């Protein structure tokens, strides 16, 4: 597999292509570590994977136009709406084993736009997986 420089990624939120308004994306998927250690001669701990917490954090440019970042995200946050989230590493290539798409239904539990004088208006938004299917990579 070749290395890659990210610039063709596709970010879709609630069926809307926000790729051009996003500059970073990061999945977090973590199983709780449950300690099931018993007495043993070596003193080693034993763990099992517990419940799973998943989210995706996207850094967006602040944009307040029609069907742009704020118009998409704020109603989702305000109304506690579950929405679809998709991330495709390369928008110019079909979904497949070498270009898997991350998909899931998420909620925007916190929303914190802001601005700093003289700087690009950006803020991070965390999409938290909100149903049993979670966030998963698909190859079809």
């Amino acid at each position, binding site marked *: 597999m070749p290395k890659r420089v990210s610039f063709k990624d596709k970010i879709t939120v*609630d*069926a*809307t*292509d*926000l790729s051009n*308004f996003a500059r970073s994306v990061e999945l977090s998927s973590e199983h709780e570590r449950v300690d099931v250690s018993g007495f043993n001669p070596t003193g080693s701990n034993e763990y099992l994977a517990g419940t799973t917490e998943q989210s995706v954090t996207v850094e967006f440019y602040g944009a307040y*136009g*029609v*069907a*742009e970042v704020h*118009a*998409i995200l704020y*109603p989702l946050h305000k109304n506690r*709406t579950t929405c679809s989230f998709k991330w495709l590493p390369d928008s110019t290539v079909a979904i497949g084993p070498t270009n898997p798409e991350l998909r899931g239904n998420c909620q925007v539990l916190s929303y914190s736009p802001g601005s700093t004088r003289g700087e690009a208006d950006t803020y991070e938004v965390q999409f938290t997986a909100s149903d049993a299917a979670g966030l998963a990579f698909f190859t079809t």
Partner: protein
Amino acid sequence: MSKKTYVVTAETGFDGHEKGEEFEAELDEELEQRAIERGSIKEKGGKK
């Protein structure tokens, strides 16, 4: 629900369709309402 025809009205597109494109779909009622309210789509022949 039944299929309706929509026109994409925003630069950010909708469900893989680009601005100006017409498409036929059976959208989830809440998704349809959100998309129309924020200006992503309008129903063809429907109210503006």
